[in-house]
């Protein structure tokens, strides 16, 4: 049985790869940001 082919286009491929890398980088800044905010508000735990 032949497999149906529906390829990721180059723009979707680039969006997924670059978007994920930027997303991971943004996450770092975001996590540190909420940590500082909660530490200042004494709401860490």
């Amino acid at each position: 049985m032949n497999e149906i082919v529906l390829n990721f286009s180059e723009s979707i491929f680039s969006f997924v790869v670059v978007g994920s890398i930027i997303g991971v980088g943004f996450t770092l800044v975001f996590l540190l940001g909420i940590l500082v905010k909660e530490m200042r508000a004494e709401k860490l735990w």
Partner: protein
Amino acid sequence: MEASLTFISPQAALLVIGLMSVLILGFGYYVSKRHVKSANDFLFAGRNVGLALGTATLVAAWITGNTTMAAPELAYNVGLIGSLAISTMGLSLALFAPLARRIKRLMPQGYSSGEFIRRRYGSLAWKLYLILAVYYFLGFLVTQAMAGGILLQALSGLNYKIGMLTIMAVCTFYTLKGGLKAILATDFMLSLMILGTLFCVAAWSYWHFDLTDIYMGAAEIRPTTLNVLTAAGLMFLGSNFLFGCGEIFHSNIWWQRVYASSEETAARSFTLAGLIWFAVPVVAGSLAFIAISQQYEIPQVNMIFPIVVSKIMGVSGAVLVLVIIYAALASTVSSLLTGAAGLIVNDIYRGVINPNVDDITLQRYVRYAIVALAVITAAAAWNPYDSMYLVLLLTGPAVASMIWPIVFGIYTQETNLSSAFWAMLAGLVTGLAAYFWISPYAAAIFSAVSSGLVVFVLTRLQPNRHFQWQHLSHDAPSA
């Protein structure tokens, strides 16, 4: 292990592991001295954990050694859809968010996932649940300990037993010292380490290549890796998602974190962690396309991640891979140890033997259980066996069978009392049958569908009209 596949010397690997272990133990010790003042802190991290620590601990605990190593392997063999299939396990984490909010509301003083099953469905379902949950915990712990030893040996040639024992010893020590509070704080540090290192590695790697060249190279050399509709990819997609849901919905690791969170952050931290986690396998998996387009020699397909990073970054890349793997394993093993010990002691000792036990005594028994689990795990993982992944996949029918009894139990007041037991049993039997007669990847799907049908049909035929949500309260008698 083939000598040509080592990326760093055993001495350098020991130095990296030693430095990281000192950092983890030192930080854990600092947190326990400064912030662990009571048994409540040790067992439930004070029950008021904020968004930052709550989110980071979920991310760190859910990123296992397998997340970064299997995603590039699947991307290489199956395609981009393969690493997206692993990413769906992040959606499982996010899907637990509404359940987390409701659990926190229904059982603000709850202490384990087993307690919910016992109060909701009675002791027969609870006994079966305990067997399945402990089996899952042990299977997961042993595979993580083995993965630690195997990966360190593969990366550096370091003796398997030294790698495995180091990870187990470090995790056991800092878990014993500071309990859940130390784990949450250390998990924050480890999640930053994993995400930061992964970001640097991926950004540095892709900086050196043109994305169009990589896409065109993959399209020419391995066109199937860009196909959205590969049969294997779609099968992985459904199977991984359900397996992930089963693992998260039933396991005390995640319930423990719900009870530790404050009411306003419980759901938000699961949603955020799920979204953050989703990107990790895609980033790791994307490195496989560099290997394909640049036609790197891949003697061992499960080593694509270190191969690509070492090719591009040299020895420093190998060190960074080691940091990611070690941080991922340490956070997962410590969470498993405390989750399993909490379940066993709270459910069996507090639930059956001594319901009036005080928190100090409980804390002591949890420590004993952590040590016992670590020893059992190290003994079981002493000699690695080839079928490691098989052990983990075999837990699929068990964990997927618990999805619907938990969802129905949390949301539907009239859920049939005996349905959970029969659903878990039916899910287990059909899942195992699918595992052996159809495919290991079909097991979770069959298990979840059959167990869902059993809960639904039994509840329609014989709804439980006597159950009140107050029965789940900490002071109410069991069902």
